[in-house]
């Protein structure tokens, strides 16, 4: 009897559970943050679907400004018919202007919210985030998945490295690493990834342009899909990367020389002028591409050193390979460190020929 009473009392607690019935909530799919005109204020934009009937639904956006993201949320809540639900969020966008001043202040509440997943995507927009969210790109974004799918498919099947909320937070909270995020821009009818935004902690300090995304990816992680466009005076072509393996090793301790070795296996998919079926020719192409890759990679690492940032996480690799790692000493020496990049390229296929 006592047990039953206890059970019954437990049932009374059910009033404490917060109900979020699917059709009674505003399901926010994308969040955008901009700098507001007032000082110290940011402008938040939410993008959510409204369902008209089973076949048609469209995205609606709302904007409000406030000093914190919680304040923005409250402001927005005062405008929506159904309470705002943030659990199905898939992308958070920041305008470049805001990113240059730091985004962690805004991200912090979202980072603490257990309802927000870590597999969602972050992006930096060249234009204002509101400008990007206010368009539905000829129904492309009618389900609210456009931005996340755009980033996801580029990460899985193309040159964009794997970047999401989790990797951002990892890089941000690591002692000697800095985050990178996709850099988006609105074109006529679509949003395009025009490069990577590089950060010093949570402040954006520069960009990597489109051509160098792949180089960055090879230096950043192992992957299995990507393509590299190469050209010189005599010919141009395209190398489809089948496999890329990254290895970072200290050559001279402490913190003097680091070698990044990248093993790349690839397939020649496009090639002008010379007969690519000839093994000799393939060898020479291999050499050319290798040189180009190494040259570009060196340019990147030098750029990072100049900005005193470490998006590649070299510091993390060094730390893991050094007993008694001294962070302060490493940071002092980082800009003068010799970062060597070596590519081992192997072209395994050159397509059907003859």
């Amino acid at each position, binding site marked *: 009897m006592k047990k039953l009473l206890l059970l019954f009392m437990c049932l009374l607690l*059910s009033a404490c*559970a917060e109900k979020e*019935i*699917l059709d009674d909530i505003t399901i926010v799919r994308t969040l955008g943050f901009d700098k507001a005109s007032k000082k110290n204020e940011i402008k938040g934009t939410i993008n959510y679907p409204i*369902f008209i*009937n089973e076949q048609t639904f469209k995205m609606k956006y709302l904007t409000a400004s406030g000093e914190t993201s919680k304040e923005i949320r409250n402001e927005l809540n005062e405008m929506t018919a159904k309470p705002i639900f943030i*659990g199905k969020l*898939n992308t958070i966008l920041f305008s470049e202007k805001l990113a240059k001043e730091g985004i962690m202040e805004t991200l912090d509440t979202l980072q603490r919210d257990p309802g927000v997943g870590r597999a969602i995507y972050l992006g930096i927009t060249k234009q204002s985030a509101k400008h990007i969210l206010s368009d539905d790109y000829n129904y492309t974004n009618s389900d609210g*998945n456009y931005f996340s799918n755009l980033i996801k498919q580029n990460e899985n099947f193309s040159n964009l490295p794997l970047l999401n909320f989790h990797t951002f937070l990892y890089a941000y909270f690591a002692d000697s690493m800095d985050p990178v995020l996709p850099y988006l821009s609105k074109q006529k009818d679509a949003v395009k990834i025009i490069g990577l935004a590089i950060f010093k902690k949570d402040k954006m300090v520069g960009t990597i342009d489109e051509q160098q995304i792949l180089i960055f990816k090879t230096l950043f992680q192992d992957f299995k899909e990507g393509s590299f466009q190469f050209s010189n005076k005599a010919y141009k072509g395209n190398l489809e990367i089948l496999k890329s393996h990254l290895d970072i090793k200290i050559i001279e301790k402490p913190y003097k020389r680091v070698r990044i070795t990248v093993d790349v296996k690839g397939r020649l998919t496009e090639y002008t002028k010379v007969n690519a079926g000839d093994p000799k020719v393939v060898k020479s192409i291999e050499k050319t591409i290798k040189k180009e890759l190494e040259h570009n990679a060196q340019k990147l690492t030098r750029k990072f050193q100049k900005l005193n940032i470490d998006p590649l996480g070299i510091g993390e690799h060094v730390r893991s390979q050094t007993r008694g790692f001294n962070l302060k000493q490493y940071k002092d020496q980082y800009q003068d460190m010799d970062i060597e990049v070596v590519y081992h390229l192997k072209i395994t296929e050159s397509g059907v020929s003859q």
Partner: protein
Amino acid sequence: MRFFKTEKSVKSNPAVEQKENKHLDTNILWQETGISDWESGYIESLISQERFNKEVLRFLQDHQQLSSKEMFEQLPFGNKYWEDEPDNKTINEMILQGCVALKKRSSSGMLFIHIMKEEMARSINVPEIEFSVIGPKEAFNEELETNLLLIQKRLPTSALQIEFIEIGLRTKTKVAVLYLKDIANEENVETLKKRLAGIEYDHILDSSYLIQMIEDNKMSIFPQFIDTERPDRIVASLIEGKVAFLTQGSPHGVYGPVSILEFFAAFDDYFLSWHIASLFRLMRMFAVFFSIFATPIYVSVITFHPELIPDDLLSTLTTSRTDIPFPPVLEALFLELTIELLREAGARLPTKVGQTIGIVGGIVIGTASVEAGLTSNVLLIIVSLSALASFTTPVYRMSNAIRLVRFPMIILSGFWGLLSLALGLMMIISHLLGLTSLGRPYLAPIYPPILSDWKDSFIRLPFYVQKKRPKQLMVKEKQKMSWWKKRDIDEFE
């Protein structure tokens, strides 16, 4: 009808006994036979008049000179009994069981001859509940003797023990307990016999009465015995080392101890190839989980955890729910109740009408309620699928239990979502862990884990792999076969 000298297990009801003691039954027809001074007593509807006239009376006439004791010795009947000093109680009992009492007025003592009327029993039919496409198609009927015959025919061994107990203060129902002497665990046999003997109840009309009275946990909704209408299934269980009982007047044999997994094994599984049987069994297990948890998961996800819905389903689910006035719990309960009503109506109506109700009701009510905006079409699919899944359980008792378990789960998930669903699952599991069947663990091959018994649980491996009887039954003879050597199938010694 065979006359069974039963073990007197019934603790008699004193009130009933006194009444019976004082008077002879008024239905008994006492009359002079007209042959010397013999008088006879019997109940007309019980005995075979033809045999009485042709065999008993003729013999009396031919041997008029014999005294009653001599007559008893010479009577050419198998079922004859002699009482030196019969009291009214014995006389009543014997006559009510289909005996003719014969008494010579001049001498003491009474003799009884059992010549009960051959009953008009139902013929042996095809199993209706546990129908199998392949395999024998004989089912028990209401006659205990026929049922025993069906079993003995399949088990011509002297190890087969049949013990009779009489249960029911008024119905005096005969129950036959069956087991194989050299295999079955004696503890199991004793437990079952003791429990059966301990029953004090007015009337036992079917073996399901007994099942409910001897279950280990009578509060549990999970059945702890399997009742089957297939004699082959009873035989298989006996050979495995289980104990079975048959009840007079019941077309179902019952056996135990059982584990929960047996309820999802159709006997058909043994007739099909083991690959297919295994697939079917796994399918049934999946169906059980689906049936119990599909609707509750839907309810809790829609109500409390919309973040769990995949992106592609978001619009479908949202739009399907937009016009619905009820919270998801009520919506789900409403639909589940509709399906249960359909099932119940179908079960109560005559077969032909029942079928129509099922189809018409399912289609018409389902479609109409979606169109009227009372339920969402996604939920309709889930509910009808889970109802369908619950019908795959081969044992009727279990499939009912599964359908019942679903309701508290739905209500719970309406309270706290997945949290309370997990709580409910925990409660079910802890209940099952504590449950026993004839004192043996109910979850047996799973917990306590007995890996060797898994060969015939979730899956059914080929016969040559199953060399031993299930360990959980603690049988006397563990080996099922000793002759299976690794050799070519056509190689002879």
